[in-house]
């Protein structure tokens, strides 16, 4: 049966089913009679009532099955034509009423970096001297139907517009949300953030260097299970196909030091074993009414273009403190993440790790001070480590804009212990409906 036929059938069932029900609901008043809805003597026990209900549901399901036979009642179900009567804008499908919620974000950046232009690593999105539009983002969110919600995030840089995320989420499965579409890999805390929610102007150095400035995102499916325990425990299991757009650096045959390496098209991977698999476990404990501790662990695996197995292991820990009565004026959080990457069979490449830790302290309603330290190249030799420290002060007038000033100091041992300094000012603005913030 085609869709029109189905719709007609549905209309028939609704109309046909509703009419007698309405008639039963409103019987003519009986003078001096007993109320029509009086329960019969000897009320059934709950289990009997449930059994009766189950029987009725089964009957109904069977009746529906039968009614789906070809042409049953379809002709009689045709709705009367309503053209020319009370037409409104929505009659032409132009109503705004059910539009998705639209919000926009902009990140503007201005500053100076002492890094030589040729030393800047594009793949790492290092801050570069000048004025720039760091990112413009448009997000659309809507409840699709009783069963699905959809979210789309479009981002634009100077050169291109692309989707950062676009996925549907199930709403009606107990304990479980299944997301499908272009999604961010559930790696620790940082990878799932959009840039306007970054605690600092850029992602942590090891993350940018190892996962790429955009982090890990790809078309796939995410099964997010809320495990029924007394404390919050969520398990994310994801299957992702990194062959959409640029392959992930962790799976491609590029090496971080040599970003210009051509991607070998002959290694186009399409077998099941070539998908990337992500498992992430997140737990959160209430230490007190004002303090929480979150601990998470992530494993990412997939076959890389060197025909080896790439393993990425990450751990994260976050402590948040928000006083109960004065949460608007002061708060504190401390977050640490570690990351370890082994691209098996990658020629001349040893496993490499990185870590970052940051503190954020809100000392007044609109003011934050923050610091972050990051290292790339553990546990490898000292000579190859890169260190980066950042200090940031933020003025946040309200939830919809912020002005942030950041100083960064970076030291790459390999480059003859030279230091890179950078100072940048960032303006963030958000427009649109009030967002519900993730914790």
């Amino acid at each position: 049966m085609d869709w029109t036929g189905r719709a007609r059938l549905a209309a028939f069932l609704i109309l046909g089913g509703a009419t007698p029900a309405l008639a039963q609901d409103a019987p003519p008043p009986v003078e001096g009679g007993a109320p029509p809805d009086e329960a019969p003597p000897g009320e059934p026990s709950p289990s009997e009532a449930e059994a009766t209900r189950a029987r009725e549901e089964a009957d109904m399901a069977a009746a529906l099955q039968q009614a789906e036979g070809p042409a049953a009642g379809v002709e009689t179900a045709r709705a009367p034509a309503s053209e020319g009567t009370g037409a409104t804008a929505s009659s032409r499908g132009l109503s705004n009423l059910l539009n998705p919620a639209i919000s926009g974000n902009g990140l503007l950046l201005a500053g100076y970096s002492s890094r030589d232009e040729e030393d800047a690593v594009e793949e790492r999105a290092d801050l570069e001297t000048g004025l720039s539009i760091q990112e413009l983002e448009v997000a659309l969110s809507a409840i699709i139907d009783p069963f699905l919600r959809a979210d789309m995030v479009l981002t634009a840089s100077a050169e291109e517009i692309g989707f950062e995320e676009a996925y549907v989420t199930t709403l009606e499965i107990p304990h479980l949300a299944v997301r499908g579409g272009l999604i961010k890999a559930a790696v620790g805390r940082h990878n799932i953030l959009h840039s306007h929610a970054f605690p600092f102007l850029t992602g942590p150095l090891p993350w940018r260097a190892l996962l790429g400035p955009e982090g890990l995102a790809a078309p796939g499916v995410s099964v997010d299970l809320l495990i029924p325990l007394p404390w919050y425990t969520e398990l994310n299991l994801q299957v992702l196909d990194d062959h959409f757009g640029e392959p992930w650096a962790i799976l491609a045959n590029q090496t971080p030091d040599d970003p210009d390496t051509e991607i070998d098209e002959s290694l186009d991977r399409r077998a099941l074993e070539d998908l990337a698999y992500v498992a992430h476990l997140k737990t959160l404990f209430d230490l007190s009414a004002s303090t929480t501790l979150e601990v998470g662990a992530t494993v990412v695996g997939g076959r890389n273009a060197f025909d080896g197995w790439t393993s990425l292991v990450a751990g994260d820990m976050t402590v948040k403190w928000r006083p109960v009565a004065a949460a608007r004026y002061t708060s504190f959080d401390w977050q640490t993440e570690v990351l370890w990457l082994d691209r098996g069979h990658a020629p001349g490449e040893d496993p490499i790790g990185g870590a970052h830790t940051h503190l954020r302290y809100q000392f007044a309603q609109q003011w934050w001070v923050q610091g972050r330290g990051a290292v790339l190249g553990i546990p490898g030799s000292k000579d190859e480590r890169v260190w980066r420290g950042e200090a940031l002060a933020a003025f946040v007038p309200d939830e919809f804009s912020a002005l942030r000033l950041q100083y960064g100091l970076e030291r790459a041992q390999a480059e003859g212990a030279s230091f890179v300094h950078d100072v940048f000012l960032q303006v963030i603005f958000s427009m649109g409906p009030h967002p519900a913030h993730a914790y």
Partner: protein
Amino acid sequence: MMLHRSSLFVFALVASTLCASPAWAELRVVTTTTDLGWIAHVVGGDRIHVDTICAGNQDPHFLQARPSYMVTLSRADLLVAVGLELEVGWLPALIQGARRPAINPGRPGYLEAATAIQPIDVPVGGVDRSRGDIHPFGNPHFWLDPLNVKLAARAIADRLAQLDPADAPVFRANLATLNGRIDRRMQRWQATLAPYRGTKIASYHATFNYFARRFGLQQVGYLEDRPGIPPSPGHLVDLVRQMRAAHARVILHENFYDPATSRVVAERADAQVLLLPVSIGGAPATSSYERLLDLIVGQVVAALGPAQTAAAHP
């Protein structure tokens, strides 16, 4: 076909046994605020179990969507929220994270209590955020008007009865008890505040507007003129002038906001700052709605002084 039908029947039977909560289990109700929690507790009695997300001394606008609340919500049969976008900054994230279809908005397990009341302070003209983080559908702080509490209680009782029809008579009887409790105290509160009708007051946020309207107090202005944004000195200077001109002697200040600004303004306007709880449990000895209103009414009257003084400045 018969086989098909009977297999469907078995499936439905198994499904209903697995999904339906047993008849003796109490309904698990989660409310966003303690005031709604109190109403649910009085109306539901021993037939329900009530959990509350936001503590009485916590600002319901700025709660964090802490995942542990998702765990609480994941077991709820009914979620009662204030509505009018009071919880917009955190509740949607909690509902989605709870993965509990029964409490999704649109289901019988989701109730916004503000749908039962007539909102005030609905912004007219263009709505944008130059006016701060405003509530575009009206003022959500309805619960300090006792008559609104009765309306919300009726909505909650109706919803409980819908979810648990067997206990509907209990809920209706409890609702009548709650109404009686409020009516009796209402007479006393009205009598106490009657001499102060028309007295001018100021407040930090627009939390006391329903209260002021019910008891005839007149709001001169707010310290926080644009919700969510600290007041500017210019605005405070204007407010001090307005308060002096109107002989407003009291600033009602929600006790989860920093009182420093209110104290500065009070000093210059020759007024007094009243640090008040605005929800049940927001201060010691506010364990019930009657006690909360007793405390607020008592403090307001004490601050305004003898009624004659108030009447001298009409």
